[in-house]
């Protein structure tokens, strides 16, 4: 433990004189004492260093007080492994964890990494030592798995934002610009695909935390513009003239009032899809994100009365 720091005596060694020999002798005769983490350039160090005769040791081996932790070196120098505000030491710099960049952030490409790579993470260099000063200020990928900086809920929100959930492409009979009749069946449907009806799924990760999120429409609410709403749990069935005046087997309506007197003498119909969003995290946690909706509107829905002519 009581090792003597390396002494640089090369400048003296070139002399080969009596003086040099004397000087070397003096250095060698200097009592060995533990300096531990007391760097040569320090004026004074923390410690309980006891002056000892050459070669003495103490049972604890701790004669130098609180020197830096021995684990981190840069060149021949022992440095602090971590510091408040500066983060942890890694190859010449101190780093703090950075939020994972968005998957389309070019920094992934410049780092040669893919967003799903959890073998490391992105870090901000906060302070660098000579040799690594060029790193300063640049977000850097290090092969150190990032500690999760997001909660599962936050990660779920981010995963959701990356799903393209679209408003429902709505259809109804007889359609905008045409005039339907009171009491006649109106067929209601939407073009259903993964983006408009689900299920849509995405996996996202933040450090060691990963999460799979699934979104699917659980109901669609048609606001018919006359004060009534129709709630369906399916996309509905597209109307075909072959169906004549039959009711939609899944999602339909029949206006009871004419649209005359409404703004522009027409109803405005709004369809809102209500999505059920659920997620499962790698930690086993599960959850839902409530209140996810998408809305489409179509105007100029005209409803008239059947004129019955008695003959």
């Amino acid at each position, binding site marked *: 433990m009581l090792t003597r*720091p390396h*002494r*640089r005596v090369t*400048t*003296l060694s*070139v*002399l080969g*004189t*009596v*003086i040099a020999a*004397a*000087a070397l*002798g*003096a*250095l060698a005769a*200097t*009592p060995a*004492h533990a*300096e531990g*983490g*007391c*760097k*040569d*350039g*320090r*004026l*004074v*160090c*923390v*410690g*309980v*260093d*006891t*002056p000892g005769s050459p070669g003495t040791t103490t049972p604890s081996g701790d004669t*130098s*007080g*609180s*020197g*830096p932790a021995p684990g981190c070196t*840069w*060149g*021949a*120098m*022992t*440095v*602090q492994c971590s*510091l408040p505000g*500066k983060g942890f030491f890694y190859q010449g710099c101190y780093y703090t964890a950075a939020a994972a960049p968005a998957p389309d952030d070019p920094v992934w490409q410049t780092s040669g990494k893919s967003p799903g790579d959890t073998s490391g993470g992105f870090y901000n260099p906060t*302070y*660098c*030592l*000579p*040799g690594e*000063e060029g790193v*300063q200020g640049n977000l850097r990928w290090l092969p150190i798995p990032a500690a999760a900086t997001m909660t599962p809920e936050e990660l779920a929100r981010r995963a959701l934002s990356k799903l393209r959930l679209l408003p429902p492409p709505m259809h109804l009979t007889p359609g905008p610009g045409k005039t339907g009749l009171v009491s006649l069946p109106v067929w209601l449907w939407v073009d259903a695909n993964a983006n408009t009806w689900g299920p849509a799924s995405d996996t996202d990760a933040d450090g060691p935390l990963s999460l799979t999120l699934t979104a699917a429409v659980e109901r669609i609410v048609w606001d018919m513009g006359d004060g009534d709403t129709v709630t369906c749990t399916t996309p509905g069935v597209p109307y075909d003239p072959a169906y004549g005046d039959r009711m939609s087997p899944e999602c339909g309506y029949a206006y009871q009032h004419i649209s005359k007197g409404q703004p522009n003498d027409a109803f405005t119909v709004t369809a809102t899809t209500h999505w059920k969003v659920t997620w499962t995290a790698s930690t086993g946690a599960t959850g839902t994100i409530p209140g996810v909706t998408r809305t489409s509107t179509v105007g100029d829905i005209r409803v008239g009365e059947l004129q019955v002519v008695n003959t």
Partner: protein
Amino acid sequence: MARVLYERDLHMADTPIGGIGVRTRTTAAAAVMAGVFLAAAGCSSDSGSDAAASSPPPAPSSPSAPASPSAEDQAREQVLAAYAKYAAASDRVQHEGRAPAMGGDEKTYMTDKARTEYQAIGLDMEAEKTRVTGDVVRTPAVTVLDLASTPPRATITACLDVSAIKLVDAAGKPVTTNVQAPRYVQTAALVRDGDGGAWRVDGVTSDRQRTC
């Protein structure tokens, strides 16, 4: 054979630099040996080199011509100036007790090796939450000046009087310190960047038990 004696007292500083008094004193006899200067430190020591300080060493013969005294004078002053800058920066960091900001001009008078220690000292003190108070008085002298080597090298031997220095914690309360001589010997190695380039401190060695 040439033998040149230098007996000067530069007193280039006594001027506080960043609150630190730096007194530069070059006493001593120096012998020119193929461009190598030998001078004893401007402080007493137990190294047995006192004799060298009080009387010039025997001048050895040298087959090569010595550098001109003016070039050596100039180099000596530059070496002392580089050490004074190093000392001021090092002392400032220790008074602040935190790592120095990056991007300063330290690289003009410290090599990367020296700067690494200089920064690491600030980091250590930041971790300890300590800083020093009081002034250190440094009495440096150029003890080796070798303009013929590649790169040119110099050694400064300085006596550091740290008797007024206290180590304190964040609250300003004194902290138990290592035991060392109140005036101890520090040796600094300097190198020159090529011919005519800047002298830079490459590292220091402290003999904390060696009284001066």
